[in-house]
């Protein structure tokens, strides 16, 4: 325990409290512009999605592009819980997350035998199938959408759940189980000869990733009043994939930074609609050509990096442990 309570931990906790408090206070005092508030909430939801997708794509090395599908399952399940079954919000979030995790498990079991592009395409297919099934599911409004979802998600909810997600995945990664996942990314055959049941850990990472995508879906559903299957298409999955790749595969802080940056970029470009997607796509191409490993590579962002850069050192192994 004493290992955890070092100076950095204490500073982190203080900063977190300050951050949460200052935003919460300004919400209560109505000094924060609701549009910024909305984007802060969106940032937190996107962080959950990006970090959880990074567990699958970045850390375990399994190429998935169906994350929006799991998000949809979480969103719809939680909305059914609150709207149709009259359950409480926490229970609804949990139900959404668990439902997404179960589907993730069921999908992961057969498909994770596939590799690389093939897996990517299979997950893309699953994402689309989930979407089509919701279109044909009249109980939740079918294609026209699920209306009348209460507006319950608040800054407090998203902040703490995002924090929980980041801490959960960071702690998972920094344990023997997490290292087992990473070893699969590095070399699946070598991982097996180290005695690691690769199927188990691939499915585990996939299930955990789906769990948090479902959580994010539940938060999303209860913020935007309405759900529509077309919200959870291929392009939305690509949005999160881009966050993960842009931030760096295997970098939690990278995903967080990319989620923040892309959410802000999206908000900023709203008024130049016609150009927005063109700028976005060009940005993607240029970044991939000049920095295919993403902004952070598989490194974690830390203040030490600045210090080292200041001293003109190379940051060979910063934070990578």
């Amino acid at each position: 325990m004493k290992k955890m309570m070092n100076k950095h931990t204490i500073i982190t906790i203080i900063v977190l409290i300050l951050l949460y408090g200052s935003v919460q206070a300004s919400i209560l005092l109505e000094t924060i512009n609701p549009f910024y508030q909305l984007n802060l909430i969106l940032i937190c939801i996107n962080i959950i999605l990006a970090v959880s997708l990074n567990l699958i794509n970045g850390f375990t090395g399994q190429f998935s592009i169906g994350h929006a599908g799991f998000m949809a399952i979480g969103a719809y399940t939680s909305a059914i819980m609150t709207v149709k079954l009259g359950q409480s919000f926490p229970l609804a979030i949990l139900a959404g997350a668990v439902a997404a995790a179960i589907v993730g498990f069921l999908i992961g079991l057969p498909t994770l035998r596939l590799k690389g592009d093939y897996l990517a395409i299979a997950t893309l297919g699953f994402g689309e199938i989930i979407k089509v099934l919701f279109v044909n599911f009249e109980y939740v409004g079918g294609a026209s959408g699920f209306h009348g979802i209460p507006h319950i998600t608040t800054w407090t909810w998203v902040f703490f759940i995002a924090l929980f997600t980041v801490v959960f995945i960071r702690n998972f990664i920094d344990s023997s189980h997490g290292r087992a996942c990473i070893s699969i990314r590095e070399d699946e055959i070598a991982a097996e000869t180290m005695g690691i049941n690769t199927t188990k850990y691939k499915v585990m990472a996939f299930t955990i990733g789906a769990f948090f995508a479902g959580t994010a879906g539940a938060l999303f559903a209860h913020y935007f009043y309405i759900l529509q299957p077309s919200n959870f298409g291929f392009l939305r999955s690509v949005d999160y994939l881009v966050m993960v790749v842009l931030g760096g595969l295997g970098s939690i802080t990278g995903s967080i930074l990319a989620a923040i940056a892309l959410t802000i970029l999206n908000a900023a470009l709203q008024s130049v609609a016609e150009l927005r997607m063109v700028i976005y796509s060009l940005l993607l191409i240029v970044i991939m050509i000049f920095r295919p490993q993403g902004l952070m590579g598989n490194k974690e962002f830390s203040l030490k990096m600045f210090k080292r850069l200041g001293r003109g050192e190379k940051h060979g192994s910063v934070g990578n442990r």
Partner: protein
Amino acid sequence: MALLAIGNLNMAFGGLNALTNFNLELNSGELVGLIGPNGAGKTTVFNILTGVYAPTAGTIIFNDENITGLKPYIITQRGIARTFQNIRLFSNLSVLDNVRIAYHPNVKYGVASAVTRIPSFHIEEDALTQKAIDFLKIFSLEDKMYEIAKNLPYGQQRRLEIARALATQPKLLLLDEPAAGMNPQETHDLMNLIKWIRSQFNLTILLIEHDMSLVMGACERMYVLDYGIVIAHGNPTEIKANPRVIEAYLGEEVPNAKNQ
């Protein structure tokens, strides 16, 4: 009693017979070489032994248990470890993590403990890390602990791969061309290291190697494989004098060679 007994192993890829009636026995504590020209089927033996391929026919008895066709991770947990011809390290991870991953099957804490960071997690994780560090000391890699594996010099990468394999606590270690790409000095050091780990860890070792000085100098016995068939086995002196071996390696004697 033999630690490992391979009986009448056959392996066919498509129509090609990579191994034909391959038999091999290893006694506890032996250091045995498996040699032969390129494409003779040596690595195939390793791949079948570690479960990467399932054999077409034949049985593998290890430690009185039939392990034929088991999954690789289970075979590792039964006590067979290996290294690879073309080093397969977890190249973006630190040296320490490479070894810590090898300890994974022995880890007792679950995902929940890992995520919640309860005290027992820290206790076990610290113990595990300490064990890994101690291990690295044996291989004089402790000062490179936080180095990323792919940044190590080649010789050290080889050593790390062996260290990592040993960390799975095997009874039998399979080394696939450990000296490939090494200079004579490194090869010499490696030879000593192999001999030393055998006694230190009470190991049985099966070695594939092209560097004959290493094989001849280290192994008590050796099997020579050519076209998937064992053409000879015996001690180094016998092997060196065996005409079939010389032919397999140097080709048929051409009597009129000097007439050129």
